């Protein structure tokens, strides 16, 4: 009886996956392949927001459109590098799903976790499901001790000051209800990873239900982009800003 009801009343949701790209010619193809592999029975669309990549990322996306269909992969490019927050806003304009997933294009976020995000949301009816790298079943690969120390110190500081209610503040692998994302993103002004922090803290302050799922994060670009003193200063400034304005 309960099973029957479930099947008849079951609503099929659509998921819009927004992926901002810049010079991710190879990675975007691999990510699209993996998404199609892991979301076989799910109604979804992928929105690639490319900021005028000089390496031909958009050509690759057009080839992927030939392979998978232009209704499944949307290319909504912009003229030049304009920043992450505006990339999400731009992608949101074209999203037709009930839910929006945001993820990175550099393969640090593996699409194999998408089913667990969806499942968690359906189980709990959460407004936001965020991936956390800092719990037992999660993890990070590719960081040295110094990087782990900075990450852990930053996390403890943010937890003490902000009481955010999530364990991974700077993570950018998240599932939002579309209306919730539209609401939260309109009130955020920061840039970079402080933007991700601002989103989750503002959502927490507004009382949206936030759930977490463990994810693993494979950092393959760590060697090339270091966490320097200026990043730390930016982070501290961001913390103070969030402390005072949220």
């Amino acid at each position, binding site marked *: 009886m309960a099973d029957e009801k479930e099947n008849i009343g079951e609503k099929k949701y659509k998921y819009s996956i927004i992926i901002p790209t810049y010079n991710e*010619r190879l990675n975007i*193809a*691999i990510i699209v*392949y*993996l998404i199609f592999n892991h979301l076989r029975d799910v109604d979804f669309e992928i929105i690639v927001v490319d900021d005028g990549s000089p390496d031909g990322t958009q050509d*690759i996306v057009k080839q992927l459109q030939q392979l998978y269909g232009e209704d499944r992969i949307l290319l909504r490019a912009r003229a030049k590098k304009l920043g992450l927050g505006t990339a999400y806003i731009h992608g949101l304009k074209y999203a037709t799903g009930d839910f929006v997933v945001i993820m990175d294009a550099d393969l640090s976020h593996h699409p194999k976790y998408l089913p667990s995000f969806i499942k968690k949301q359906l189980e709990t009816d959460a407004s936001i499901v965020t991936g956390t790298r*800092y719990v037992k079943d999660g993890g990070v690969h590719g960081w040295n001790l110094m990087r782990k120390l900075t990450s852990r110190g930053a996390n403890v500081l943010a937890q*003490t000051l902000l009481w955010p209610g999530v364990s991974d503040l700077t993570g950018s692998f998240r599932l939002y209800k579309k209306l919730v994302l539209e609401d939260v993103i309109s009130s955020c002004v920061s840039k970079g990873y402080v933007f991700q922090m601002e989103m989750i803290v503002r959502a927490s302050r507004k009382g949206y239900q936030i759930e977490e799922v463990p994810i693993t994060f*494979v950092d393959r670009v760590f060697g090339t982009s270091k966490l320097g003193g200026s990043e730390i200063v930016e982070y501290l400034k961001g913390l103070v800003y969030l402390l005072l304005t949220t």
Partner: protein
Amino acid sequence: MELWKRFDLVMFTGTYNTAILKSYISFVSRTMKHVVKILSLLVAVSAFWIALLQAAIIPRSHTWLLPIYFVVSLGCYGLLMVGIGLMQFPTCPREAVLLQHDITEAKDFLSANGVDVRSD
């Protein structure tokens, strides 16, 4: 006044002030900025500390040092949390290997289906 009477007064005043502040905070917490919440907490704790000073149950010299003890223990707690977190930091070396497999699999499929997989 006797010692036990003063203790009562301190406890009552401190608890009363904290209770009032807490209900005020939860009443307006939706619109109140987070920093205001923290400041209210600090004010409550300070009120309690001042009450302790005035009641002079603990010798004044000790009471004056209480804020310093508080800050130091907060710092130690923070360092402890960082250390513990660092020791328990979850790693996933297997995932890097799995990712390489996925990449190879993806490249094979894509190149067989008309997608260019050169990275330059």
